[in-house]
């Protein structure tokens, strides 16, 4: 079952008191911050984080230290934003970090902000996490009172303020430039890049956006050093990673694994296999936007960035969705296409129109009104959507549907050739068809 030796980021998840600053401090908290302020230069901190191999945990996997290095030297107003928008279907890990260990996130955010010379740090929490906003704000207030935030932090001369910003229900605000626009009080529509936010972001100033889990990893890297961090994981996928697992397995929920763990072992020994009466059909490894793997493909891969890329998918956010045999894949893709169509911000024609088309075609297929040409049409629409837009949401819609169609084509075709039988194959089909 879950291996305690790998509980690093999640080591306080089974406690009910770590939201108190005194508890966190007694457990070694804010030691990393004190260390950087008194003993390290900014260059040293950035070098240590680069050396650790820590990669962004929000989805793209970009090396955190490298991103920090992009901030221009000669600019004064710099911003740091912590991405807690967590809206990628299948993903629910950041919420646990903020809920059970808010100070670790805050300490990591302060160290990260200091490393890039930010004067303001914004923690952007999705609006649906209303209860978390209050909890994190209370922790931030404590950090101010303890002198870890505000003016002249710990006598270092460094001043940093922190805002807890509540989103209001828009998946696209998780995209970093959408997030920046949202904090500016605008619609959360992504911006064209370049310029990249590290050079021109919030209020046109350099802005670094990192995921919650990324910043939460920073204090340990500072305290124990990069080489300790690298003890887990692989050469290119260093450290541990939180996977949020959903679907009918025996042990769903948050699992912190050493990157590189074989899926087979994870599935059988950590997740305990499928719940009674269920059989594994497919796995979405890293949130709804990545290509699906069949059960056989999944069993042969390891859980790290490189292995998953080789298997034709992505580690993404670590939002692992377990799909049981009883599920109709066309029905599931309808659910996802509805989501991307709903969440497209509408700026780019290929995305705005394409997601609408995909949703309509799948709906039509499921009504039994589809033709074989519709399957070609899905592919054609997708061709016109991938890689052509301001942000990758368009690709995020394409990847699942193309992989579903490729790997589960007979289920799509069955809707055309033998309408009655295939529709009654799913108990939920009739209800959702309406």
């Amino acid at each position, binding site marked *: 079952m879950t291996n305690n030796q790998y509980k690093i980021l999640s080591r306080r998840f089974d406690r009910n008191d770590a939201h108190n600053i005194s508890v966190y401090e007694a457990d070694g908290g804010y030691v990393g911050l004190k260390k950087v302020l008194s003993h390290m230069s900014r260059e040293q901190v950035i070098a240590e984080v680069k050396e650790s191999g820590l990669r962004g945990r929000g989805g793209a996997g970009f090396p955190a230290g490298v991103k920090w290095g992009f901030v221009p030297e000669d600019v004064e107003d710099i911003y740091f934003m912590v991405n807690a928008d967590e809206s990628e279907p299948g993903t629910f890990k950041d919420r646990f970090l903020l809920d059970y260990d808010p100070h670790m996130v805050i300490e990591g955010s302060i160290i990260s902000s200091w490393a890039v010379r930010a004067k303001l740090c914004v923690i952007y929490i999705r609006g649906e996490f209303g209860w978390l906003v209050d909890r994190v704000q209370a922790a931030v207030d404590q950090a101010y009172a303890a002198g870890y935030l505000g003016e002249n932090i710990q006598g270092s001369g460094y001043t940093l303020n922190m805002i807890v910003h509540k989103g209001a229900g828009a998946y696209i605000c998780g995209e970093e430039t959408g997030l920046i626009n949202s904090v500016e009080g605008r619609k959360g529509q992504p911006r064209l890049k370049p310029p990249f936010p590290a050079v021109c972001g919030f209020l046109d100033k350099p802005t670094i956006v990192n995921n919650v889990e990324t910043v939460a990893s920073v204090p340990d890297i500072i305290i124990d050093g990069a080489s300790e961090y690298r003890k887990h994981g692989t050469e290119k996928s260093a450290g541990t990673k939180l996977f949020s697992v959903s679907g009918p397995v025996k042990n769903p929920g948050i699992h912190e694994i050493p990157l590189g763990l074989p899926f087979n072992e994870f599935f059988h020994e950590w997740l305990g296999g499928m719940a009674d009466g269920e059989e594994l059909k497919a796995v979405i490894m890293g949130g*709804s936007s990545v290509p699906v793997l069949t059960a056989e493909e999944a069993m042969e891969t390891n859980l790290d960035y490189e292995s998953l890329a080789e298997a034709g998918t992505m580690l993404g956010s670590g939002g692992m969705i377990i799909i049981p045999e009883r599920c109709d894949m066309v029905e599931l893709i309808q659910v996802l296409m509805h989501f991307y169509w709903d969440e497209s911000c509408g700026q780019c024609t290929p995305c705005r129109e394409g997601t609408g088309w995909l949703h309509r075609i799948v709906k039509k297929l499921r009504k039994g009104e589809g033709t074989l040409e519709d399957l070609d049409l899905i592919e054609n629409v997708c061709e016109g959507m991938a890689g052509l837009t301001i942000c990758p949401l368009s690709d995020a819609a394409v990847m699942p549907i193309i992989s579903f169609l490729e790997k589960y084509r007979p289920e799509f075709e069955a809707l055309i050739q033998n309408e009655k039988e295939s529709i009654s194959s799913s108990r939920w089909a009739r209800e959702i068809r309406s």
Partner: protein
Amino acid sequence: MNDAGSVFTLSPESVAEFDKIVERYPTKASALMPVLWLIQDSAGFISDDAVVWISEKLEVTQARIREVISFYFMYRDTPQAKYKLQVCHNISCHIMKSRSIMTHIEKQLGVKPGVQTGDGMFVLEGVECLGACGMGPVMQVGSHLYEELTIEKVDAIIEGFRSDQPVTPDTDRKLEG
């Protein structure tokens, strides 16, 4: 829209909160989202008068405020039911049979999704992923979530609201210290 100036007023506590927000944010315009939350939380929705008021206070055009309100799903510009039961219909919850939860609530309330009950108490909405996928099916009510829903649990929750003794949400866990 309203030449005579805003007739909207905030309670003294909310005014104090408003001042705090504006002080915290680097520009007035950047305070728009928290100010919209402040108003919605106190009034239940964001009225036309509130838009005029915000426009004057934050020096942001009314058009931009309305654009922001309509862009974000959670901002509402009309009065809302007392309890919005927002059931996740995204992939993980769907796999865990959220559809049957939706159907059951529909039956219990006697209204279609999106339609308020006659007494203004409830509305049912299907919503996108709530970030609780491993605990599905889930639903959001106000600023909390109810997780691992079953028919029995949903009945108890609805009954709790009806009798003014709400069931404690799963995200409202007991903190120590």
